């Protein structure tokens, strides 16, 4: 059944520095889909619209398509592929390649943000453990990327690239707090980060590493962490 919704029916509830929201912004840009961007000022509190659109998690990003909400960044990206099949897709068409893309996007989801948060939030032994884990994560992703230009391989810039790219401005913060260099630990990942950073959809969706670092500082202050 053909969808009667037009792409001008798209609204994104988001928070400027959220890597999860950025995944959706990247996908929308890759697909050239116009949308209304709504900044939720999460530091001030959550709007009624956000709470109603995502009553279960009360989190951004939320995509509203003809008023109907879709939640969870990777689910939103897949939704955009499926609801707008005439736009460039982020997932490949082959079932096996799709399964591998979903696996690795899930890996990024499970590992990167949580470990990164512990890295800048904690001290002592827990921080050392987070550092060790982050190095492991970067090395694992390095192995998966291999010599490919993008994680999407033959497909080109794809689902996993969109899932992981928003974390690239966070590398500088991870490096500062963890005292390591991505370029030394995972040189292919560092090179990939530079490549994706130049891609138009990514460049216009992300903020600079300095801004991310400053934001972490703001959060630490707000929550009374040294």
């Amino acid at each position, binding site marked *: 059944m053909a969808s009667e919704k037009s792409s001008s029916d798209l609204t994104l509830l988001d928070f400027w520095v959220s890597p999860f929201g950025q995944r959706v912004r990247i996908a929308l840009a890759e697909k050239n889909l116009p949308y209304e961007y709504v900044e939720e000022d999460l530091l001030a509190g959550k709007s009624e619209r956000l709470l109603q659109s995502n009553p279960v998690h009360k989190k951004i990003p939320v995509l509203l398509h003809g008023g109907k909400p879709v939640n969870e960044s990777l689910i939103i990206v*897949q*939704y955009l592929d499926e609801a707008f099949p005439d736009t460039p897709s982020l997932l490949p068409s082959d079932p096996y390649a799709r399964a591998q893309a979903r696996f690795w996007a899930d890996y990024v989801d499970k590992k990167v943000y949580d470990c990164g948060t512990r890295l800048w939030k904690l001290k002592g032994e827990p921080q050392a453990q987070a550092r060790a884990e982050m190095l492991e994560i970067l090395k694992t992703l390095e192995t998966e990327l291999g010599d490919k230009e993008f994680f999407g391989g033959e497909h080109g810039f794809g689902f996993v690239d969109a899932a992981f790219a928003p974390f690239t401005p966070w590398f500088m913060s991870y490096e500062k707090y963890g005292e390591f260099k991505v370029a030394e630990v995972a040189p292919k990942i560092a090179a990939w980060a530079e490549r994706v950073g130049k891609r138009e959809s990514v460049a216009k969706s992300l903020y600079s590493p300095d801004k991310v670092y400053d934001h972490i500082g703001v959060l630490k202050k707000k929550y009374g962490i040294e």
Partner: protein
Amino acid sequence: MRHQSKQALVMMSEPVKLIGCFGSPVVHRAELALRLKGVPYELITEDLNNKSEMLLKHNPVHQKVPVLLHGDRPAICESLVIVEYVDEAFDGPPLMPADPLARAAVRFWASFMDKECRESMWMALWTDGEEQAGAISAAKANLTLIEGQLPEGKRFFGGDTIGFLDIAVSWIAHWMEIFEEIAGVRLLTEEGHPTLYRWAREYTANQTVRLCLPDRDRLLAALAPSREIFVSIAKTMSTQKQYSVCWICNI
């Protein structure tokens, strides 16, 4: 009427192996998907206390089951990734709904099951005192949310037939009651969640489900001795929660 594409015929002719272990709810997901699609497979049973070279080779990242091997392709891991793969790679009744919004919804609730729901149930079963009381409340509220996804008047989350979300929340239908018995805690009752309770009975009575559902008594016997381990896992989860609050998107 669909005819089998050449690609589908090729894929069907390549042998499928599933690495699993007795009693695992996530292995069940993969097995049920294969059975519902009519895909023959060889089940290889692992002893997770003594992981084989084969498992470690095929799933170096997580070192967990289930692992799907289709022909010569490198392994597919993570149960819900496997279920979607089986749905897409093979002909047979679709497990996912057709409509993009409906697909997004079942993926959302499957993810909810694996994160918030599972965590709240674990804490409700294995903590004590005030923490447990809060967790029991949260777990029951989560069951209500899941129950709300059952289509009106239908036997399954997938409608008249078992679908992706039935498979994703199958833990509730069979494993939950066994853990409840070991813990001495009731979370799912007919009074508290009549529709979900009825679904659980429908699910476990289904012929295809029964072919890959671990025997209840054998499962109880296998799990009961690990009570202390379950309690310590809950303690770790409790500590980790303090560390991993989502700071940007959940403040």
